């Protein structure tokens, strides 16, 4: 019995087996967990996603800033959005 299998997120086994000779170099990605089968987390019910594209530096800085202040990226972005609303004379929404 493997020593650390209790720490895995996904149970092991049935994820590919030994590669067939000649196709071994082809890295077949593991089956991703089915999106449809995943129920909407409670934190997302009744909420909308806002997405945007930034430089890797901006992404990294935001993630690191969130970690430093022990916030989620979500909480950090909510704070930033409220700040920018105030800056432009709008009322903050608060998440």
């Amino acid at each position, binding site marked *: 019995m493997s020593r650390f299998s209790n*720490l895995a997120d996904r149970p092991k086994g049935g994820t590919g087996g030994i590669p067939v000779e000649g196709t071994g170099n082809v890295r077949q990605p593991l089956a991703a967990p089915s999106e449809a089968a995943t129920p909407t987390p409670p934190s997302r019910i009744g909420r909308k996603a806002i997405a945007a594209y930034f430089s890797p530096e901006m992404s990294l800085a935001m993630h690191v800033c969130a970690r430093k202040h022990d916030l989620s990226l979500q909480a950090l972005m909510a704070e930033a959005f409220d700040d920018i609303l105030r800056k432009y004379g709008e009322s903050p929404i608060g998440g």
Partner: protein
Amino acid sequence: MPTIAIVSQKGGSGKTTLTVNLAAAAEAVGQIALIIDTDPQATASQWGSWRNDRAPEVIDSAPPRIQHKVDQAKAQGATFIIIDTPPHADSAASRAVEIADLVLIPCRPSAFDLAAIQTTVSLIRLFDKPAFVVFTAGPPNAPKIYQDAIDLVRGFGIEACPHLLPDRAVYRHASAAGASVLEFEPTGKAAAEIDALHMWITAHVDMSNVAHEEV
């Protein structure tokens, strides 16, 4: 009990190859190695399953759970933990760097690849971790190329690891067979290079632990 993070924002730099072979080198000298695979593509996990989960063991982890898993694995006897991270994944990379005793940045000795490590370097600075660039997949005999690469890396404010891992076909053959290069060709050059790197890492982590204790 070192925890090593393998980080590079660039894909194809040899992160997983470095991860699995270093873990195998640790096992070969009697350490209990654990690979934590934070890459959603699960390449290291695939390697583990190809070898029917023979040691070194591979487990997956979402970024927020890495710290807990490292603590737990140490309590369960792990003596060499290595965290493989995906490219362009700031959450996984920053968690891994935060937890690690030593960060290794695999990088090909080419200008494009080297330019791309600057983001990784800024991440490492934020957490103030000891880190080294490990040159991977370059030509075996090209001292001029490596000297230029070392100079460029120093210009970014980071040191290069003195051990090189040049491109060798055995890495591909071994991976496809679910093996490490130490198992696939124990007397080969790649095995000797991986062994030397592993010994260097062990010595380096021991030294920096002693240095921290003295402060």
